[in-house]
């Protein structure tokens, strides 16, 4: 049996960490540059776009307005629309890899979670009762419906007042609503006990991309014939998906982080993989 060592696994996953850090720094730098540019001190050769222009969810919330009036919701730019299309393309191919690999808010929650692991040890990410957790996992669809409805009738970026992503990269500016700062604070606090709490229970964009898990081209698959039932894949999953009991992961919560795969935590080669086919 061809085994994959943990060392090799962690080396493979380093690519994800590098990309997460890169996108976090990129978005942070652009957000700072946006503030500097307003004072005429912008950094040359670096975009000073507003954060709204860099958020693909802005494209999603403006679809209705664009279809009915031909205009964008206030503060939304064409780039949000383009990013939405690009993110949809990646989701059709790889599922919500945007969430697992790029989203800076997801990354920050993961980094806070590393501290949480040290505090709660084995109990970390297993503190919410299973029955309650199962129901709460769908609450993000309620958030999505509320955001889409309110934006559609108002023509305004209603969610910006509660958006922890916007608050994270604008906490120094007067543009941030107190609601956003409170939600951000709660998210970071909960991240110490639960992995990616915002993604699991409240993120409306994660709700949209999560649907792609039902029809994505490259799926995460487990080969029962070579599986040794060690359950490491299930234990490693940040979204608490029971990978070890499934042959194809179609859970709407999967973020395609690939932490469960044979290149990462699974000790048996070619047993949990990202592949096409039924």
């Amino acid at each position, binding site marked *: 049996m061809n085994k994959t060592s943990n060392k090799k696994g962690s080396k493979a996953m380093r690519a994800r960490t590098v990309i997460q850090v890169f996108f976090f720094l990129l978005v942070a730098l652009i957000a700072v540059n946006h503030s500097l540019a307003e004072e005429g001190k912008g950094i040359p050769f670096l975009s000073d776009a507003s954060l709204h222009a860099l958020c693909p969810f802005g494209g999603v919330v403006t679809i209705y307005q664009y279809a009915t009036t031909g205009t964008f919701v206030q503060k939304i730019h064409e*780039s949000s629309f383009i990013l939405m299309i690009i993110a949809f393309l990646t989701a059709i191919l790889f599922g919500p890899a945007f969430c697992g690999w790029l989203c800076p808010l997801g990354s920050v929650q993961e980094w806070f979670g590393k501290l949480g692991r040290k505090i709660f040890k084995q109990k970390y990410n297993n503190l919410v009762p299973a029955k309650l957790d199962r129901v709460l996992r769908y609450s993000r669809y309620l958030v999505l419906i509320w955001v889409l409805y309110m934006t559609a009738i108002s023509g305004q970026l209603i969610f910006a007042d509660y958006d922890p992503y916007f608050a994270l990269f604008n906490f120094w500016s007067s543009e941030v609503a107190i609601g956003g700062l409170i939600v951000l604070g709660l998210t970071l606090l909960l991240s110490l006990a639960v992995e990616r709490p915002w993604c699991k229970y409240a993120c409306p964009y994660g709700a949209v991309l999560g649907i792609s898990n039902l029809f994505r081209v490259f799926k995460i698959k487990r080969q029962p014939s070579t599986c040794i039932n060690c359950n490491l894949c299930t234990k490693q999953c940040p979204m608490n998906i029971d990978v070890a009991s499934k042959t194809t992961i179609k859970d709407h919560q999967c973020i395609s982080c690939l932490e469960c795969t044979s290149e990462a935590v699974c000790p048996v080669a070619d047993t949990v993989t990202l592949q096409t086919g039924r």
Partner: protein
Amino acid sequence: MKIKISTLAISMLVIIFGGILIASVLGVWGSKSELEQINARYDGMDAGLDPAQIRGSFSFAEVSEFFGIPLDVLAEAFMLPETVDPQYFYNRDMEALFGAVLTEDQEIGNSAVQYFVALYTGLPYQQSEEMYLPQAAVDILKSQAELTDEQIAYLDAHTVQIDPGDLLAALGTDGEEEHDQNEAVVKGTTTFYDVLNWGVTETDLMAVLNGEMPPTNILIRDYCTQVGLEYGIVKAELQLLVDAAR
């Protein structure tokens, strides 16, 4: 077909940055501010920049650059106190500056800058509401711009005498009231949703518009432009309804 983690990583980067590159080449990647986009489309006044495109997000420095009006002329016309750097004074802050010293039916905001620029440069401008300018702006226009008798008469009837000391006092209290998101003032960024939210009924709204209820998410100003209504009149009538409802 199986793919590795590294393949996924590279694919994601290629799709994202490749997508942005393609969008940029096709000219549909609009992440820049409205001002920068306008700047890219027009090469200054000679290329036909329209004063109506001046937005609240424009600083005086940008208005100066685009329309060739010296910065100190703008600062003097709109009575900027010496403590305010005109380079970084934004049109959207005009209402905060003049709001406290004007009567209810008067307004000196972004539209006043548009109007001043149009008269100063002689560029065509579709005036859609009553315009008021400070005495200093009117004096500059009379001495430096080529005005018709009709324009001079209009300016004389719409000149506002303002004590610079009052403006300094207004700046001192600037901020909270003007930036209160609950303020019920009909302006360029107001949607029909806002007006309904402030207590105006659909029936009253339709009476003002003399037609069907438009989509609530549309800007009132855009709607008026689309259907050929006089924005200034609609705005004034709606403001009366809003004030009555509150």
